[in-house]
């Protein structure tokens, strides 16, 4: 399960992607992923709007995650 990071999410984690390895317990749903992120990186708790995409489609909290999914964390960006 690969997680691609954009915008402020990339800045918070400090890299543009990371993986949940097969031996780690990967999150089972989008909402579990959000909780996990907040625990590892408390700054995610501050983000009131963070879109999550699974396999290039927008995914709400109920969406289940499985091995091999490609996840993107997409915060809003403001610059122009």
């Amino acid at each position: 399960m690969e997680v691609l990071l954009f915008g402020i999410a990339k800045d918070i984690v400090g890299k543009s992607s990371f993986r949940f390895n097969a031996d780690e317990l990967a999150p089972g749903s989008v909402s579990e992923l959000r909780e996990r992120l907040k625990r590892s990186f408390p700054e995610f708790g501050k983000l009131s709007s963070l879109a999550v995409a699974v396999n290039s489609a927008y995914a709400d909290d109920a969406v289940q995650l499985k091995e091999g999914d490609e996840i993107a964390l997409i915060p809003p960006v403001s610059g122009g």
Partner: protein
Amino acid sequence: MNFERYDRQTILAGFGIDAQKKLHQAKVLVVGAGGLGVPVLTYLNAMGIGTLGIVDNDVISISNLHRQVLYSEAEVGQSKVGVAITKLRNQNSETVIIAHETFLTQENALNIIADYDLVVDASDNFPTRYLINDACVILKKSFVYGALHGFEGQVSVFNHNDGPTYRCLFPNMPKSDEVPDCNENGVLGILPGIIGNFQALETVKVLTGVGEVLSGKLLLFDGLSNTFQKISFSARPENRELHGLRPCYDFECASVFNIVDAEAFLGLTEFEKLQLIDVRTPKEFDRNHLKIAKNIPLPELDIRQNEINFDEFIYVVCQSGIRSKKAIERLSNARPDAHFINLSGGMNQIKKHGVTN
């Protein structure tokens, strides 16, 4: 229309005279004449858009020049709209260019946007983006979105043929300290050039019907690795049921509603004529309440909306100010046009000062 001027477009198979004429008849509003607005304006003007409106109220600063390539050193301190208009007119005297030398506000947004076919969001802040979204939803205009963060950019077309809106991706405006802007975070000069050009391309596609429009798709561009991702997303019908603009789009009122100290509420003129909804349980309400209050317990809020007059100010109270905040959040999603005011501190505050009933 000078046909020789557009010859390279009109001979292009799949574009031709018809698409060129559609550009000529189109009226496009560009909100922002900065990093994104400059390439959008310059290329739309070159390609032959008939009418271009520009909304901005900023002046050119030296630190704009690394990305806002329409402006010269000697023009630092001058109005962006003023300088832009002169140069755009020199570039193409056939375009009708309309200056709106103001920032877009909730007072002027509907009036300004109503005259145009399409809005390009070339702004640099969340309040304006959410305002553009809501105004375009109300007026049924497509808007072409672009925004930046460091080496990255996002592009999409919202509200196009009943397609998804900006709020279908990002329902609520971030608070002011959540996401840094270009001034805090920096931006590579070429990035707004790239994103602005994608916006100009989408604008042409929406206006002419040529090609596939990025509706329901968010394009993510990372300039460092040259990766492009397209994320598909769907419309959420509730985001199109807007009855009007919200009362405020500034960061200060990102919480969507206004607050009045419960105690101060009692001192308002004509207090006794105000509409006050008490969202506590009937039991709490029976124990103590203000005479003017109507009791609609929080769980019944959705089914009893018809008892609320949304044309008047709606004051909401509970015991401590928490449930009333929740009530306003729920109501204002349905009726963002209504004016809600939370009684902060709630009945506790009022009791403390000995002024119940």
